[in-house]
């Protein structure tokens, strides 16, 4: 059986999209010295409100905007606790994650009267896909690249925008300096608090888009535990990518690859319980390879420089 069909690569991109959103949130967060471990919970809550917003207004766009707004709001609440009230940001993030799993379930029950899913009422409200003229006609490639949701294209566009933001704008310079040496930033009049709020806020919006993708495209509406660790995988992707946008995007794609592989294998009739751990095993293997590679590079540099002496 040929695994590497156009469909397979198409699904890698589809699966990687929500991870990519959260990964970019993690990249910007880490650059600004804000470890946002609450991405998972933010995605959860945004997924719910994206889906509900679309249902209430009959507009996927408003649903998406609501998801982003909820992501922003949650991240700002997190920031208020972490920056103003000086709580430990890891614990704050953990609280956000717990609200994400328990709070959503509660809200679904209160708002819709349904248990553990909104699929019954929201199934027809999806983010549209785009079929790209000309590109879609390229054999093989066209099938991989064309036909994704609007958000997927936005996600990849955002990789480039993140680079511009971090390295080409005054705000990016401030984010990086606050992340690296907040004293240096504040000594020249940069408001560290403001930059931290902006950093976490951008992350919240991005995670919100990831959440919207989950409930409004990836699945038909919100269901319990649907984010399934993507917020955490994003943190791993950020670290695997060395904290840089492009590297982290590639790492997100590796996770997409692993998940797609899992789906493909289970389609051949292998017990799904055996297949389910594949993405996580790939994560561990990728991290080990990454670490070994870094070590080797370090050693090489060391010995080659020593040889020159």
């Amino acid at each position: 059986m040929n695994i590497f069909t156009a469909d397979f690569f198409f699904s890698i991109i589809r699966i990687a999209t929500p991870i990519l959103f959260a990964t970019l949130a993690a990249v910007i967060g880490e650059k600004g010295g804000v470890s946002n471990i609450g991405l998972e919970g933010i995605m959860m809550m945004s997924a719910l409100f994206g889906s509900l917003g679309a249902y209430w207004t009959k507009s996927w766009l408003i649903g998406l905007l609501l998801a982003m707004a909820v992501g922003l709001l949650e991240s700002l609440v997190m920031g208020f606790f972490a920056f103003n009230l000086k709580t430990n940001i890891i614990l704050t993030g953990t609280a956000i994650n717990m609200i994400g799993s328990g709070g959503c379930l509660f809200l679904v029950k209160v708002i819709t009267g349904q248990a553990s899913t909104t699929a019954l009422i929201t199934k027809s409200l999806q983010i549209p896909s785009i079929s790209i003229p000309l590109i879609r006609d390229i054999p093989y490639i066209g099938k991989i690249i064309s036909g994704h949701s609007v958000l997927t294209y936005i996600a990849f566009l955002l990789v480039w925008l993140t680079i511009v933001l971090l390295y080409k704008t005054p705000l990016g310079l401030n984010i990086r300096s606050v992340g690296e040496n907040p004293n240096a930033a504040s000594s020249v009049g940069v408001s560290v608090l403001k930059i931290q709020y902006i950093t976490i806020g951008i992350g919240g919006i991005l995670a919100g888009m990831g959440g919207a993708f989950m409930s409004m495209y990836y699945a038909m509406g919100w269901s319990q535990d649907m984010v399934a660790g993507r917020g955490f995988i994003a943190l791993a992707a950020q670290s695997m990518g060395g904290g840089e946008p492009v590297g982290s995007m590639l790492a997100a794609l590796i996770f997409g690859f692993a998940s797609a592989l899992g789906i493909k294998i289970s389609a051949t009739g292998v017990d799904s319980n055996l297949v389910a751990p594949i993405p996580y095993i790939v994560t561990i293997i990728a991290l080990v390879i990454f670490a070994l590679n870094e070590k080797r590079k370090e050693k090489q540099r060391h010995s080659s420089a020593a040889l020159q002496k």
Partner: protein
Amino acid sequence: MGEEFVIQMKGITKVYPNGTVANQDVNFDVKKGEIHALMGENGAGKSTLMKMLFGLEQPTSGEILVNGEPVNLSSPTVAISHGIGMVHQHFMLVPSLTVAENMVLGMVPKKSGMLIDYKKAVALTEEYSKKFNLPVEANARVADIPVGMKQKVEILKALVRGAKILILDEPTAVLTTQETAELFVELENLKKQGYTMIFISHKLNEIMEITDRMTILRGGRSMGIYNTKDVTPEEISRLMVGRDVVLKVEKEPAQPGEEVLRVRDLEYINEWGKKMLDKVSLSVRKGEILGIAGVEGNGQKELVDMLFGFNTPNAGSVKVSGEEILGLNQREIRERHISLVPEDRMLYGIAATASIEENLISDRTANKELNKGILFNMSEIHKMSDQLVKDYTVLCKSAGQTIGSLSGGNIQKVVVAREFSNDPVLIIADQPTRGIDVGATEFIRKKLVELSRSGIAVLLVSADLNEVMELSDSLIIMCGGRIAAYFEDTRDLSDELMGKYMLGIEQQTPEEIRRVCHE
């Protein structure tokens, strides 16, 4: 008085929320175009006074006038807008950014609306660099440039923000002798261009060399303002500590015994491939102090790291009392009665949030006398630490006080008390008096001499020339990871001669250097 005061601080009192009185009724003024020294021991209130001038702290009472106008310096931004700039002791730079990016941080030039105009940032950096004759590499990452250049960047950062009055917080603490000389030329140059500088320092010779007037603080109070040319170093030190500090340490000639530390052919290539130690061999005998002088970064730190198991050399051997200690961990090394006064006391010397007492027993928690079953014998521990606090004149409320709240000198006294009281055969003292006040410095130096005369081997690493020359019986100079010179007797060594070896202008023959092995 036709003279113009750019800064006047009148009756400044600062009481911190925890009740510490950092400044009490201090009067301080600075004339336009002068270099004004602010002197005092650690904890005398210099930093607090300057923090208030730079808007980082607000006075509890008192008045600050800039150019004769009363001002409310509520934040550094306000201070900067009044033309006050500060060059911090710990550089306020972002290492991964370039020099130009650091220069414009917080005031970034923009192009096409929202992007950084990096070219303009570089041009601005180069313009100021030229104008004030402070050469920096605009495109280099700050992480890659030497300390001296980082300081130039800091000064330029203040100037580019329109500072006319520069506060320099112990600017020479991190500089080599040569860089210090460069800095002084640059400061004179700034002075000629009408800039005013406040120079915080402990170093008497520097103050005498570069400043016009000085304010001396002691215990949070001002001891007066003096013209530098009217006071002698002895007077200054008396005003600072309230008694004559004997900067000369009296010591008997050493009577070296058997070899304790034996280092042979130590080689180390660091992770970036730079050879930091090149066949370093030396011996330290019982009852002597061997000093290691040299410009920082010439292998001294690496040598100490090897001796105390923080790093592994590529080749060579280190024996203490005949036993190889390479490859042992710090506990095993300490079990062999080797003590270390580390260079960075906050990082390696103490746990800042623990109490004085806890820090004192941290190397001996397994001692039988301090334990009772599986629990500590607290009464024994209190007794021991009270005694050490008394013996080493640590200024504190009690041994239960958090060590981080003490002044630098007192923290170092605690470190020294621990390291000296565990029956050592070898003491490695790495920059033992860096950045601490004259009183504590004198105390620690005397103690080192006293211990060496009682038969302990001491290896003293210091960037302070006075210190190595005063304390050492014999000394070596390190340059570029090698021993550049060995002097059996330090008494008639001159600064100039040492300088030549330190900067690599001269180098002794291998035979001359080999004498340090006493074979």
